[in-house]
């Protein structure tokens, strides 16, 4: 995975990882997402999974960590556009109930 791109639109920051999102992506994901938690104008961090082809269990853990940090600051983490192979797994572990999940 290359570094995720970040777009801030008002109070919503959209973070888009791409390709394989695995344990090796953790540092890049952390570096891109944690500043958003600290950014006072951002209230929602939206992870756009449209171009993510694969996630391993460590990357799911990265989402949990981010959620924990954001919740502590009163912010929300949401998921967007998981591809059809990803969605069943997210549902299996009920991540769709833990993170607001939508398609655009």
């Amino acid at each position, binding site marked *: 995975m290359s570094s995720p791109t970040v777009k801030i639109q008002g109070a919503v920051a959209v973070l888009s990882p791409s390709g394989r999102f695995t*344990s090796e992506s953790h540092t890049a994901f952390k570096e891109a997402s944690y500043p958003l938690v600290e950014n006072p104008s951002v209230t929602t961090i939206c992870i756009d999974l449209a171009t993510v082809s*694969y*996630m*391993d*269990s*460590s990357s*799911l*853990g*990265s989402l*949990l*960590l981010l959620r*924990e940090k954001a919740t502590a600051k009163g912010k929300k983490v949401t998921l967007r556009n998981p591809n059809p192979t*990803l969605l069943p*797994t997210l*549902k*299996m*572990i*009920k991540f769709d*109930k*833990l993170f607001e999940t939508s398609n655009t």
Partner: protein
Amino acid sequence: MRILVAEDDAATRLLIRRVLEKEGYEVTLAFDGLDALERFAQSAPDIVITDFQMPRMDGLQLCRALTVARGERFVPLIMLTGGQDADLLHNSLEAGALEFLNKPIRPDELVARVRAIAAMSAMHFTLANNQEETLGEIAIVKHLLERLTSPGLKLMPPGFAMETLQTRRINGDACSYLRGIGGNHFGLLCDATGHGLVAGVSTLPVLETFQTMASRDIPLESIYREINTKLCRLLPSDRFTCLIMFRLDPEMGILTVLNAGMPDVFLFRGDSQELRVFTSRNFPAGILEDQGEIEVEDVAVVSGDRLFACSDGLLDLFAEPILRKRFLRRGTRYSAAEDQAWLRNTLRVSLKNAEQHDDLTWALWEVPPPMPLDLGQDPLLPPTETVEGLALQFDLDPRIHGVRDLVPNILGLLGYKGVPSATLQKLGIVLTEGLDNAVDHGLLGLQSTLKAGGFEDYEARRKEALDAHGAGLARCRLALHYTPGAVPILHHLRVNISDDGPGFDWAAHAQSTGPGELAPHGRGILLMKALTADFQFNEAGNAVSFTLAC
């Protein structure tokens, strides 16, 4: 760092020694190849520098000999050569040399080469040590997992198969089987996130909690809650564990499944070819400390039904869905043993073909037939003079407390008081059955024939009746009888179960229920009668008493 130098020319030998010793290396000198080989064992050098041309044994021969002598240890060999002849260099590399130095020796070049090689050697040494340490740690965790799971798996009844096929690493998969104090079968499949030691270590509290609680026949929801709380507190927040738990009560014909983040569990119906799917309905353990309601599914099962579950290592790619499809098509055409053998074989082959894959855990259980009932005469224990050493008595309001989680705790206490496990197993069955009867039929007035309409339907009717239920209790008294003497010995348990309901016509029931009608719902009283002695109803039919030998 120690360096062995093989050089027949005294001047060169001394030059090398002077330069290297000034750099702080410990130097051993040899006059030729043979001498070097002899000194190699005792001086155990980290680096060897050898001349190409020497009497008795030349540089090439020495390199070849040292490649054997050093074994697994990494000892870089530096060859001193007179020129850049391509063949010579090629032969030296073939023989095991790693680096070259041109003669005549230039001290600065010698120092630079040796420094570079020494750094590489040190790094190699550290890596090798780390690997050894990691392998050691992995071995410890594997040993612990093995110790925790294998004794139980060895006790699985025929018709049950369950195993974890491990890769070389630890990937956080584990499975466990045990029989609870009341005779129910419990199974666990779990898959912790991530790889390596952390994944392995996080399965330990899962296994330990499962085994402690399941052995006491505690309901799956409570076991799951406890595991979840432990993982939330013990593990960092990016770690979680997916799991499946089963509880199979072959006497009552009830299977309970709890799926938290694992792939679908399948139940193949032996008779109807119907397929029941248990999809994950709960969060994996270790994510949310307060999950709200835990969802379990209860289904009625009969002997011959088959349960299949497996892990898929979350998103790690593996051909497992294909396997599952193939398996589904097979249904129950083959015997459980044939299916288990087929599955084992198929998995082994696909694991061998897939290089980078996750662990895989699977379970295939065939529901065993209920205990054969001896419907002959009611056995009477020979009269013996005994005294009550301990009596437990309780009244239960079904609007507030259930029977299911009460029984295991009573069994646990009696086990602690010395009641043997064979007696506890029977007591678990008859106590559950007796209290269920007192509540469902005695107090709530539900007919047992309702159960034939399906478990879910029965549960719905039961809930309605419970909501409409006024006062009225189920009552139970358990007495432990001992033979008196200097050392009192536990002789038997006498149990009375009654309810505030109007009672039922037990004499007519006994007439109408022949041995042919052994559907699980009609078996209750027969089962109780068969497992106990001195089985009696009162006149009204709202109290039953029986004895269990110890």
